[in-house]
């Protein structure tokens, strides 16, 4: 019983980074830009969050600066894919490697590595927090409670505003959007920056609120899992949230099992999230679900044709 209680209590801590990163990816990809750089942008968010906290000693400031930093770094990606029209897969990979190097270097130079930060206090949602078994699920820091709000706002913006409609049009059929007088590249730029800021927040959550320190390459592939999660969720934010919770449960279970004395080979444990990601991807491919939910112009650069 104790096992289940603490397992559920730890789940949000693992689920939130997946959820935020997946949401950021969905926003970017809805505009037709294939974003593979999540892993790198999460690292940027993580190192900047820690750096900003160590400098200003304000968690809110740290989180905001992490978002700004990821947004700024994503401008480089935007330059590559929108202006220079470099292959979006290559650009995404380059961004990851660049960010891995950049964050390791920054962390070391500034002496931010292995400096603990206090994080945020957990707030109990009374009376939910008094429930048996699931009670601990409702004792979390404020950012966890904000996640559903961020999702609500994003879904509303995507589906219930003209700007959202235009952005989705840009991702589905940029030629039609262009003919309707919509600035295609402007909307794609906005989608990249906003999406990247959310991915940066996901990274900052891991470093500032979960692990509470910076170690080089600490995101350990979570950005890639988020990329897979988006495909698994067929670009639907709510499904992505559900998927994030599922992956969070799996990740949270591993330390619980170890603590409860069940012996598992260490490397098997480390491998589990990736093995499960792989399994999910294969399942998605085999189940041949409706592929039309993928943005129609995903990965295709926009060029206004002179002769159609």
């Amino acid at each position, binding site marked *: 019983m104790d096992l289940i209680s603490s397992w559920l209590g730890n789940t949000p801590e693992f689920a939130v980074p997946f959820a935020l990163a997946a949401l950021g990816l969905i926003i970017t990809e809805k505009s037709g830009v294939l974003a593979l750089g999540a892993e790198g942008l999460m690292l940027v968010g993580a190192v900047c969050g820690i750096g900003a906290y160590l400098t200003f000693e304000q968690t809110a400031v740290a989180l905001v600066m992490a978002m700004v930093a990821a947004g700024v770094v994503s401008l480089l990606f935007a330059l590559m894919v929108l202006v220079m029209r470099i292959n979006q897969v290559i650009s995404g990979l380059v961004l990851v490697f660049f960010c891995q190097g950049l964050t390791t270097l920054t962390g070391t130079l500034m002496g931010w590595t292995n400096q603990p930060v206090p994080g945020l206090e957990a707030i109990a949602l009374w009376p939910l927090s008094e429930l048996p078994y699931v009670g601990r699920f409702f004792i979390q820091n404020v950012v966890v409670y904000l996640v559903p709000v961020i999702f609500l706002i994003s879904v509303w913006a995507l589906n219930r505003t003209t700007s959202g409609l235009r952005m989705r049009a840009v991702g589905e*059929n940029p030629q039609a959007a262009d003919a309707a007088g919509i600035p295609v590249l402007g909307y794609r730029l906005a989608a990249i920056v906003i999406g990247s800021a959310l991915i940066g927040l996901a990274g900052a959550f891991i470093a500032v609120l979960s692990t509470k320190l910076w170690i080089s390459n600490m995101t350990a592939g979570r950005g890639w899992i988020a990329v897979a999660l988006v495909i698994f969720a067929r670009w639907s934010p709510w499904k992505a949230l559900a998927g994030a919770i599922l992956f969070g449960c799996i990740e949270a279970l591993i330390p619980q099992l170890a603590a409860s004395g069940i012996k598992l080979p260490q490397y098997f444990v480390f491998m589990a999230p990736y093995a499960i990601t792989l399994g999910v991807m294969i399942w998605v491919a085999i189940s041949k679900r409706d592929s039309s939910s993928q943005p129609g112009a995903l990965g295709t650069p926009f060029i206004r044709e002179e002769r159609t």
Partner: protein
Amino acid sequence: MSKQNAIQLNGVSKTFDGFKALSDADFTARWGEVHALLGENGAGKSSLMNIVAGLYGPEGGSLFINDNPVKLKGPKEAAKLGIGMVHQHFKLVTPFTVAENILLNLGHIQSSGLYRERLRRVSEDIRAMAKRIGFEIDPDARIDQLSIAEQQRVEILKVLLAGARILILDEPTAVLTEEEAERLLTTVQGFAREGAAVILVTHKMNDVLRYADQVTIMRSGQTVKTVKPDSVSVDELVRLTVGESGTGTSDQPAERTPGEAYLQVKGLTSTGSHRALNGLDLTLNKGEIYGIAGVGGNGQSELANALMGIPEAVEGQMELIGEGDLSEFDAARRRSIGVAAIPADRYGAALAGPLSIADNFALGDIHSGRYGPFWYLKTRAIEADAAEAVKQFDVQGVRSLKQKAALLSGGNAQKLVISREFNHPPKLVLAHSPSRGLDVKATEAVRDRLRAARDDGAAVLLISEDLDEVMAMADRIGVMSAGRIVAEFSQPADRQAIGQAMVNHV
């Protein structure tokens, strides 16, 4: 206002990559009339209308809207002047609903209110407009759930709700059934009666005869004549559309002894929902050129693909007499039999642009083992053969055999394709628009090769939308319409009769 000119174009020209799509074209359409723009494929109809819609900038001449001179900078500006064009290929976001698509287009007009509220208002506007013009459209339906005809109605509603008073429809009936076309054209006739100007770009004689008040005929980038359709005979319209060169041509022997049948096509039918091929029968004899004429989009591409082995969903029989079913042969088998293919898309289907000229040439024989086993390539043999072929087939512009094939001009790229396909004397030649985009000299060279193959006893199938080419080349001519051969002619053939068969059966 009915006396005023809605659109006037004077002396408009437009060149694409050195090809003159329009030269000195004039066009005038008045308010309150349905004005048809008639011509064959490539006559310049769409180019002319794209200039009116602000998509292309004209190179010369002037444009007047409502008798005022204008210079359009883009489609948005044209829309502000009340010009709306429904393109042949719709510009709709398919996973969105009708209302969302129209809202996208109106973004800058209706900018106040909450999203839901605006979507509701747009839906009301759609219903009101649809009711007024007799369309049935559910604003909440997704585009991908609509039929092609319904999607077209959405496009028309889109331009009307954006305030268009000059409505340009580019080949609107090409994708419609008989009844759908009738309904559409009756509706647009209604717009004209209410005072709008409607321009109907078409190659269908029936549309013109039944619905147009005026018709302007275009041929090779020029406007030939503007007439009232009921004031001239159908023969006269056909003559104006297809040109008036004589029957047959000088280098065409009137009679040839046909060889035995070699390719037998029976009941070739597309399996998709759109029956591009619809029970096509065809017999091709040895030692003849069989020309397939017809207005573009009547199944020619599908036929060419099916015969050349380019993936195409068809059923029916394609028998190569003495060899077996052509559709079951892979590329290597086709080559060993002696099937030469010259596809219309020479860079897409015939050549690998980034590979060198020599490599492109070698592709034809690589499978036969002539250039070595799989682990070794006899580059010297390739280069020697390629050098000889390049010389023999007069491929110009070759600085080096290692040069990329994509750098060749259209004509020389085509010669390279032919040099490969004709390297071993072919028994069956399949050529689709082999001289498209080529200059006179290159065209002649290509045609000479096809004639030489024919004289050597090969069966040659020439699919071309250019009637002049078919007339000049073919021993027998089949007219293709709606996915089948509707009429066959032997040389000397009557150009008028062919022209009529091309347009009347559509």
